[in-house]
């Protein structure tokens, strides 16, 4: 019993300290990018040098750097968009379907460009509507405009909100390795599997 207590205390400390590492203070939700000690172990050119606090369709709060450790396909999208986004989602779905990855070997992170509008509920609706596999795909939204723009900047995604509320943007998908270094990217926008990206994915998963 005593041993268990000590163990749980240690576990709590570990959880606490890792939470502190990943989320530098409460400010992480509001503050712009702050380099933190957590970045000491990652390569200099890793995109995980940028902390971004997100919440996913299940309502789980996380930092995108927690996706480190395995390859990640990451892109940003606009949920209300009737044109490009369904095409992007379809393309990623088909690319993953053709890849047939070992479960757990890769994740796809899609982050909303519209933090004023998107919520866990609206993301959940999108997952359902497009019949997206929630085990591989993770839809998420950042807390505010500043963090969204910082993430877009790191991923070389340009976007602008027009006065009618629509968001115009370019489409770019990045493939990151386990350390968060970008190893490939695609700007192809077709509703079929992206063959070039598929080849890079196969290489990354070898």
């Amino acid at each position, binding site marked *: 019993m005593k041993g268990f207590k000590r163990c749980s205390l240690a576990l709590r400390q570990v959880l606490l300290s890792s939470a502190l590492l990943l989320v530098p203070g409460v400010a992480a939700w509001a503050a712009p990018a702050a*380099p933190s000690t957590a970045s000491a172990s990652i390569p*200099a050119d890793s995109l995980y040098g940028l902390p971004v606090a997100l919440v996913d369709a299940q309502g789980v709060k996380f930092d995108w750097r927690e996706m480190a450790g395995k390859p990640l396909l990451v892109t940003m999208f606009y949920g209300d968009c009737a044109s490009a986004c369904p095409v992007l989602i379809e393309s990623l779905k088909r690319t993953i379907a053709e890849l047939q990855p070992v479960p757990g070997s890769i994740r796809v992170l899609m982050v909303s460009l519209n933090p004023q509008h998107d919520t866990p509920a609206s993301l959940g609706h999108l997952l359902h509507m497009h019949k997206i596999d929630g085990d591989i795909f993770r839809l998420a939204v950042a807390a505010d405009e500043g963090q969204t723009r910082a993430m877009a900047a790191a991923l070389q995604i340009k976007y602008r909100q027009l006065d009618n509320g629509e968001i115009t943007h370019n489409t770019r998908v990045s493939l990151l390795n386990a350390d968060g270094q970008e190893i490939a990217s695609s700007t192809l926008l077709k509703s079929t599997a992206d063959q070039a990206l598929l080849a890079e994915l196969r290489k990354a998963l070898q």
Partner: protein
Amino acid sequence: MTWRQAVAALCCCAGLVGNGQAAEYKLLPGGEFRSVLPADGESAAARIRPFWLRTQPVSNAEYLAFVLAQRQWQRGGPPQVLAGADYLALWAGPLAFAPLQANAPVTQISWHAAQAYCHSEQARLPRWYEWEFAAAADEQRADARQDPLWLARILGWYSRPANQPPQAIGLEPANYYGIQDLHGLTWEWVEDFNGLFVSSDSRTQDEQKQLEFCGGAALSLGDKSNYAVLIRLALLAAMQANQGGNYLGFRCVREPEQASGATP
């Protein structure tokens, strides 16, 4: 203790008690504004909410106080994704802006670093429309953009050779709103620098290629006579968030609700 250490210590204390002399912000009314970037992508005027704008760009001395208080932003601190190799490259050391002047605008600052600095002043970077709104004024008029003489005057800066670092802040008279150095001293970051491009639907492959090819060089522009502003737009559209520039500085904006401590 050398004088430099003494100054550093002094700045450090000043930083702890709130940056010594607080930066001055002025309230700008905003409103309908005819921008070079139409709000609907075609012709609509932008609608700008009232905002508090820093009257002067951030200086080397002010940035030093910031990195003394937030060590992770000292040169060599931030990871590459937040600030590249050119970050504060002209400073003699991480805590020494020499040979640059204390009251010259800080440059070679990445977008992320500029945002972090503004955050330390409970502020953010101005959005393009806010910057353009403030920069449309001359000394007497809120909007001097119909005056070819004034347009020619502000354009004159761009023809000067850029072989010297920018000079001291505040040498030129303030504009109609009490804001200084919007023209003629540096380029300035805006929060939405990666949103300055033609408003094309991303379905259109050709336009998308243009976007990928020249980073937003193809703009749908409302007013093509204001070259000085168009040059800025093109430069900002071509930037990456971890880059700086020898002439690229910044100032900050506070939302009305953030500005309780600001000087009217």
